[in-house]
């Protein structure tokens, strides 16, 4: 047997061992375990605000920790910062590259990060009179699909070059590279203690990483398509992913496996984005078919729909106080619901 065949055989043997170990602890399903839980109320949130200002598809949005400011990024080449309570525009950041895929605020909201097809993550200081570009993080060999601040001086990126990166904003250099995915990295979420993070990629896997040593600790299989969105459950022990395979899945890190699958009866639209309500009970998922479905995360039932966009819902977000859910769309509008 050639060297490649030896390795392939070894991989298959190890995968079988792991599946056997997973089956051994698979003594129930989340659905069965939650059968005694009262159904979640059928909520029908109303669209309270429609924010119009972008002139092209919106690709990303992010809430500030003050639960009031929200930033959105569009392929019109702008980041718009909204005062969502007053319903007015608070700031406008023109981008060098219009091909934005991700936006985020630093904890103070004094910095915004954006990234996209320019393969860079650009950090802009918006706390002054005028937005000022502070850093252009150059080092990825592919698009930057997601960026998340750890602090005012540190940021995590997910890239089409199949790696994630941890960057020091004081030096502008990459401190750590995370290599183990074999497909474009599309999304990341940081654990509360910031010692670990989870990533989703086009290899259909989600992975848990140690931030300091750069090692992949656990890999989660189950999806059959690109994973576009990922979010921790509030207990920090489980997480939910959304995929082009039209499903969302809950994975538990203690059991090291998938514990729930959220799938429409006629699954035809990929999941682009997801957000969890404050308790984690409500799962809001944006789809390619212009809708945002509301799922009961524990019982796996669809309990509502947010309809109002005229095109794909590309991003969703819930502020840290859980007071609303926002959606952003290719129709160029953002909506705020509760």
């Amino acid at each position, binding site marked *: 047997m050639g060297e490649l065949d030896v390795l392939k055989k070894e991989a298959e043997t190890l995968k079988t061992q792991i599946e056997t170990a997973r089956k051994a602890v698979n003594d129930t399903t*989340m659905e069965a375990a939650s059968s005694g839980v009262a159904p979640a109320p059928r909520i029908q949130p109303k669209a309270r605000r429609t924010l119009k200002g972008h002139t092209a598809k919106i690709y990303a949005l992010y809430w500030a920790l003050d639960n009031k400011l929200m930033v959105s990024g569009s392929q019109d080449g702008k980041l718009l910062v909204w005062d969502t309570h007053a319903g007015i525009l608070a700031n406008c950041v023109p981008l060098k590259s219009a091909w934005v895929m991700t936006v985020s605020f630093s904890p103070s909201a004094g910095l915004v990060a954006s990234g996209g097809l320019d393969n860079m993550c650009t950090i802009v200081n918006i706390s002054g009179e005028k937005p000022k570009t502070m850093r252009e993080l150059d080092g990825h060999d592919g698009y930057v699909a997601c960026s998340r601040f750890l602090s005012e001086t540190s940021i995590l990126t997910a890239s089409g070059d199949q790696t994630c990166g941890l960057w020091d904003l004081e030096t502008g250099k990459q401190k750590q590279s995370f290599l183990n995915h074999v497909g474009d990295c599309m999304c990341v979420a940081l654990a509360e203690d910031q010692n670990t993070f989870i990533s989703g990629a086009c290899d259909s896997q989600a992975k848990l990483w140690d931030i300091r040593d750069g090692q992949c600790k656990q890999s989660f299989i189950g999806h059959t398509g690109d994973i576009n969105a990922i979010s921790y459950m509030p207990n920090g022990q489980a997480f939910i992913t959304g995929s082009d395979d039209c499903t969302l899945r809950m994975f538990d890190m203690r059991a090291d496996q998938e514990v729930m699958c959220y799938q429409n009866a006629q699954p035809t639209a990929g999941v682009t984005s997801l957000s969890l309500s404050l308790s984690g009970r409500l799962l809001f998922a944006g789809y390619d078919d212009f809708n945002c479905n509301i799922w009961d995360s524990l019982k796996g039932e669809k309990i509502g729909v947010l309809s109002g966009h005229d095109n794909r819902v590309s991003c969703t977000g819930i502020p840290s106080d859980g007071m609303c859910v926002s959606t952003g769309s290719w129709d160029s509008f953002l909506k705020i619901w509760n």
Partner: protein
Amino acid sequence: MARDMAEKDILKMEVDQLKKEVSTPRSAVSAAAKETIEFVEAQSPEDPLIKGVPEATNPFKEKGGCIIS
């Protein structure tokens, strides 16, 4: 990046990772599900999207939209 790696190196990376993951500690799904359910249920009463936001205190109570021309 995995994209630039030779097939042999990608497979080696995969095998090395699988070897590590074989010994991942795994606990029962029943125990994990129970804890998740209890955690979520305990937080649910204070979840604004579940209990609803009273009109009076809703920071997003309807005013209309924001249109920039």
